[in-house]
């Protein structure tokens, strides 16, 4: 395909304005289904290839086509990748939201827009760049049907010119995006070029924002959290995957299917070393995963809040019958229609104690695509070592957005398959007692169905069984069993990933956060230091049950702010269940629950105002 290398001319900031380099947020407002995702990802990747730390957040509706959608790209020379509330650049492509989008811009921001929208009249403190998109797309895309999809690539070219993104990198990103579809790549490249050439001839740079090559992304990868989870599961040796489609978790299993088909077909036999089944619902998805776990497979399902609710009864069964399975929960906002495509940490409390009776479950809390990968591996080990369902709590922001990361490390430890007795071992010891705490860690030994030894057989049941897995309703037998399960949870406490703690010298203000809140908190720590002279300590939770270091952290600080992306401070609630009165008295709450990823400003403002009142 033809490429035109355009020499970047030096672009000067307008007189009287300082250049702002590699520190901006671009908001692209489009209509869902208009093919903007390609244009946005190409833009993101081009900036990444220029060595500039970058992140992208897709704020999309629960809709296939027609409703408004926004994509924000943040470039930050400091490496901050959390969402920012405001943007320096707006690309207004959606007539329905354009006016509101322009009115919320901060003074000095820039707006690239479809000239038909006539946005210039709205503000005089914003730099406007009108672009005749329809006029530009017609000559590069003769097929009328494709114009809607190709049209968006034009703003990539416009932005390249205005901000200084190298066209060569746009070209490379396009090729990566379209891989073998050369025709589509060429069509899009022509559109990008048309945009660039139009800007070169017709637009005068009137804002202060620039992107310039740096060297902070060398050797890094770009990946979505759900793909990282899928990779983790594959390298954890998952063999049975059962799932039901639900936003925002579907792409976990869709990615996994692709990876497994490629890398997990047995070379000798041509047969699959796995089974992946789309179940009829989430009830069946977890039922299958537990059936497979009982029979000895490494099994998993992936779901979101509504699925978690449906899995409640089976989770309790897995807890009592002590069957391993891994459940990835890609959390989203509440039930039914409305905000299923928006992010939240909404299932923390309900999942920690999911089901009925006395149940509690290990939760792993990845904050990054890297931890999506490593914790997926950890989760399968933990599930088999502890013989219980283990949950990995991601969220939509992590799962469905594209994140920059160091390459994932190859798992260092062999698979930990837990306490499984062979026929020979059972024979040698003259039988076995399935639920007896032989080792003092609350975890019994199990046998797998198919083990050829009469003494190895056993029958899995829910709440009523004795140490030999024989039916019993005796009060003391039940109590003994659930006490052992509680003791097993203490073993889990020692085995789950510990918190990551950054101490402050002052020990007055501490922050506890988990999951994707990390990226906002990391930036907020700096804002608090700079703006308020608050030097906060930081404890990032990585799992429930909370290891002792979490309690020690709380005890060391005077006031501890727990950051939650939900209304009811669910993690704070869970900490309250586990902390003593002195620790509880120190806990305060920072909550964010509007469906958008958490931003640093929210954390900084909330802590600042509560600190002012202290």
């Amino acid at each position, binding site marked *: 395909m033809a490429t035109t290398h355009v020499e970047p001319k030096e672009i000067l900031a307008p007189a009287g304005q300082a250049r702002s380099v590699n520190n901006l947020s671009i908001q692209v407002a489009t209509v869902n289904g208009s093919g903007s995702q390609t244009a946005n990802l190409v833009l993101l990747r081009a900036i990444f290839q220029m060595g500039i730390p970058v992140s992208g957040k897709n704020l999309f509706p629960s809709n296939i086509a027609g409703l408004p959608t926004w994509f924000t790209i943040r470039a930050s020379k400091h490496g901050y990748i959390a969402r920012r509330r405001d943007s320096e650049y707006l690309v207004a492509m959606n007539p329905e939201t354009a006016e509101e989008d322009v009115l919320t811009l901060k003074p000095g921001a820039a707006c690239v827009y479809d000239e038909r929208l006539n946005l210039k009249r709205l503000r005089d403190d914003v730099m406007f760049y009108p672009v005749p998109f329809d006029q530009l797309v017609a000559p590069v895309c003769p097929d009328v049907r494709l114009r809607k999809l190709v049209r968006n690539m034009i703003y990539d070219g416009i932005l390249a010119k205005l901000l200084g993104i190298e066209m060569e990198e746009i070209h490379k990103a396009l090729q990566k995006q379209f891989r073998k579809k050369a025709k589509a790549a060429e069509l899009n490249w022509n559109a990008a070029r048309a945009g660039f050439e139009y800007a070169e001839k017709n637009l005068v740079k009137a804002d202060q924002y620039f992107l310039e090559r740096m060297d902070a992304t060398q*050797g*890094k*990868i*770009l990946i979505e959290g759900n793909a990282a989870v899928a*990779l983790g599961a*594959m*390298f*954890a*040796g*998952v*063999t*049975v995957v*059962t799932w039901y489609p639900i936003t925002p978790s579907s792409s976990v299993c869709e990615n996994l299917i692709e990876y497994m088909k490629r890398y*997990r077909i*047995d070379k000798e036999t041509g*047969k*699959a*070393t*796995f*089974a992946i*089944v789309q*179940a009829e*619902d989430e*009830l*069946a*998805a*977890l*039922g*299958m995963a*537990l*059936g*497979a*776990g*009982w*029979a*000895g*497979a490494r*099994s998993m399902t992936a779901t979101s809040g509504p699925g978690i609710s449906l899995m409640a009864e*089976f989770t309790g*069964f897995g807890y009592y*019958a002590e069957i391993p399975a891994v459940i990835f929960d890609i959390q989203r906002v509440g039930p039914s229609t409305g905000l299923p495509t928006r992010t939240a940490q909404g299932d923390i409390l309900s999942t920690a104690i999911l089901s009925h009776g006395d149940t509690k479950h290990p939760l792993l809390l990845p904050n990054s695509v890297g931890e999506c990968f490593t914790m997926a591996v950890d989760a399968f080990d933990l599930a088999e070592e502890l013989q219980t369902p283990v949950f990995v709590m991601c969220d939509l922001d992590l799962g469905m957005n594209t994140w920059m990361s160091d*390459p*994932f490390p*190859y*798992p260092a430890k*062999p*698979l930990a398959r837990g306490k499984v007795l062979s026929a020979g071992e059972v024979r040698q010891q003259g039988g076995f007692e399935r639920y007896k705490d032989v080792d003092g860690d609350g975890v019994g030994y199990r046998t*797998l*169905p*198919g*083990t*050829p*030894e*009469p*003494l190895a*057989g*056993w*029958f*899995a*049941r829910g709440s009523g069984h004795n140490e030999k897995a024989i039916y019993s309703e005796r009060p003391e037998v039940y109590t003994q069993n659930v006490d052992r399960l509680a003791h097993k949870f203490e073993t889990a406490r020692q085995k789950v990933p510990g918190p990551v703690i950054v101490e402050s010298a002052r020990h007055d203000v501490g922050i506890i956060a988990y999951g994707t809140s990390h990226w906002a908190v990391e930036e907020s720590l700096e804002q608090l230091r700079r703006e308020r002279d608050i030097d906060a300590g930081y404890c990032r939770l990585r799992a429930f049950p909370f290891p002792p270091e979490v309690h020690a952290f709380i005890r060391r600080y005077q006031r501890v702010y727990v950051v939650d992306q939900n209304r009811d401070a669910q993690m704070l609630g869970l900490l309250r269940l586990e902390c003593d009165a002195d620790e509880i008295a120190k806990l305060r709450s920072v909550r964010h629950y509007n469906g958008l990823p958490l931003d640093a400003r929210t954390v900084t403002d909330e802590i600042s105002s509560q600190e002012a009142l202290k």
Partner: protein
Amino acid sequence: MATTPVPASPTAKTNHIGLEVARYKGNKSTLCAGCGHNAISERIIEACFEMGVEPHRVAKMSGIGCSSKSPAYFLNTAYGVNSVHGRMPSVATGALLANRHLIALGVSGDGDTASIGVGQFVHLMRRNLPLVYIIEDNGCYGLTKGQFSATADIGSKLKTGVVNDLPPIDTCALAIQLGATYVARSFSGDKRQLLALLKGALAHHGTSMLDVISPCVTFNDHEGSTKSYSYVKDHDAPVSDVSFVPFFQEISVDYDPGTTTDITLHDGSHILLRKLAADYDPTRKAESLRVLTESHEKGEIMTGLFFVDTQRPSFVDLLNVMDEPLATLPEAKVRPPKEVLDQVMQSLM
């Protein structure tokens, strides 16, 4: 009728894999005395013994209810899961995906199958998972004291006088329509037919669905119930007379080819059907559904093997799953080497 093929001699102490019948027994039943379910457990024990089923390969799967308690009453040395209400199919599916060499014996009830579990039942039948699915069907909820289930016949009465005014779900018709490949109905009191059907089901590779009418002696064995012993005995209309010849026996049966259909199952076993209904051919789906519909209209309870399809691939085969159990594949087979991760990482840079 033709001479019944000779089963393994009932006087022999061991079966052809050298096990005594004691190895197939279970715990003492805690169900009501005279419960039809206990008779079914006995037939399961006989069928497994006579077929030489290896107990350690058996996965006894059940949901919740009186029926679902019964796997504890047979094959004590096998493995089992008494799971949650209506959801045994999913647990059994997972177990068979993990280890395709397991012989899954699912026991459910009419409430467990046709009400709370109908969703999972429907999808299990579609998949043709290799498993024997037995419904111990008494038309009521025994364990919660006798409420109607969805297989209760229209017009049938509870002990309390309540009349069922909703039509029943015919689990056999449903199973046939959805893709199960061995579908039969029997009666817990019909030892010979039930045993032959169970043995055929064990030899079949695919979903075998057996609806076994099993009167509830406590809540549903009275006048007015269509699932009582007396009602079923009076209204039982066998569609064919079923005999079963295991693959390890020589076929030396005296039967008249004109009146008998011989079906060869996957392991080489034979099912012999002596026709009672004219022109009945269990390999024709539409015909089987017609016969079931007509029997409903006549108020008869049709029993026998309604439908069999030995050609349709099972779910596990469709998934192209390795022969070696997935559950115990070594790390080298399930964790790709470092080069694969490096390659994937490279593609994401």
